[in-house]
């Protein structure tokens, strides 16, 4: 059993996470219900964009979470490389696909929205391109962490990539911004307060909260799975 010693810390995490997931799931469902009600029913259609404006309530939070997810990945990677924290690797494995999914959701909802608004699913615009690149940074991370026979090797290689990628992410974002833009400029997160009407802002913030909860719970669940998988492999190897 001493062979499983290195899992002691993840095991404690697992107990903790199992305790909180129940109430977290409840909160997520509740927040999603309120958010979806506000977004799909309560919010008025936009005077310019009509009903399609409702796509925004998924689109924008997904974009935020996709970007935040990479930040989380970088933090986890740092603690893996510096403190050799075994849990960080497992959580990074859990978080990367979730972040990638939100990036994909942002891309897909954006494309669906683009058709009515711009008359095309895709343009090679700065914002769109940088989100696409973020999506591929995620994919590269996932591919690298699975490219090795030894999971730990993949963990650490991917952690190095995430750190360098995190340094580069703002560079990519800004360089692409300077390159060209057609997409909506930031209107919620900007200096001097939001320039957006409260009837839209409130459901947007609810949805952002609900999807953030969803993000957290997905990461927790996936981390648990990773812990179980790693434990099985360790048991296999010692058997």
């Amino acid at each position, binding site marked *: 059993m001493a062979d499983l010693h290195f899992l002691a810390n993840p095991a404690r995490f697992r107990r903790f996470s199992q305790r909180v997931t129940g109430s977290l799931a409840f909160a997520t469902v509740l927040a999603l219900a309120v958010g979806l009600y506000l977004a799909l029913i309560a919010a008025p259609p936009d005077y310019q964009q009509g009903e399609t404006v409702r796509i925004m309530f998924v689109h924008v939070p997904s974009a935020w979470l996709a970007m935040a997810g990479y930040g989380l990945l970088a933090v986890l990677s740092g603690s893996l*490389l510096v403190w050799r924290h075994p849990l960080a690797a497992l959580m990074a494995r859990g978080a990367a696909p979730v972040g990638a999914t939100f990036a994909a959701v942002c891309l897909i909802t954006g494309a669906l929205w683009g058709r009515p608004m711009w008359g095309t699913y895709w343009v090679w615009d700065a914002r769109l391109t940088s989100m696409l*690149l973020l999506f*591929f*940074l995620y*994919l*590269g991370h996932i*591919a*690298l962490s699975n*490219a*090795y026979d030894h999971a730990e*090797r*993949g963990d*650490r*290689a991917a952690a*190095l*990539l995430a*750190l*360098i*990628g995190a*340094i*580069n992410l703002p*560079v*990519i974002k800004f*360089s*692409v911004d*300077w*390159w060209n833009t057609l997409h909506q400029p930031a209107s919620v997160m900007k200096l001097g307060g939001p320039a957006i009407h409260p009837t839209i802002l409130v459901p947007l913030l609810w949805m952002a909260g609900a999807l953030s909860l969803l993000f957290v719970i997905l990461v927790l669940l996936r981390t648990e799975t990773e812990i179980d998988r790693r434990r099985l492999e360790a048991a296999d190897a010692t058997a």
Partner: protein
Amino acid sequence: MTGFGALLARDVRLVLRRPGDVAVVLAFFVVATALFPLGIGPETNLLARIAPGVLWCAALFASMLSLDRLFASDYEDGSLDLLLLAPWPLELAALAKCAAHWIVTGLPLALLAPLLGLTFGLDPLALAALTATLLVGTPTLSLIGGLAAALTLGARKSGALLALLALPLCVPTLIFGAGAVEATVSGQGFGVHLAVLAALALMALATTPWAMAAALRQAGE
């Protein structure tokens, strides 16, 4: 620093012993570039318009093409162990490898590019911008590619994976490199672009050797 010089000399000598690899890279650069006039037809101003992007993309691809083997041969013939045990810092050794790679790919590409630019009808100033930006920008590509090569050591399917990892990180360099040439075409100077490229190169120089060394240590395990 003399240690670095010796390392660099050895690595350059090693690459030059296999001229085939360099030849394929340069040929690829020319063929890839030549492809666009064929598709677009001979409209000179259109060609001049796309030339910077095309040349930069081709340069980016070409340098990725050869990076694949940067550390892999050391890994496979056991000399990576010697590199890890060498009395000089591993960061320096990794840097020397990237520098050698740049000398045999980035540098020839930058020198070849004006010739290709000429066939696209670029004017002299644009050609100068092209050469200058390639000279300043390709080291960044070598460094980032070198990092990807170190990260994928011992990984399966390393070729495509390496490119997938490195290409997004190379985007800023590409944008400012191609942007510089376009700026001269539209009558502006390219000083700012060059400064940004230099800044990117310095950033890569400051971070990637460390990350490469860490990745190589892992591969040695």
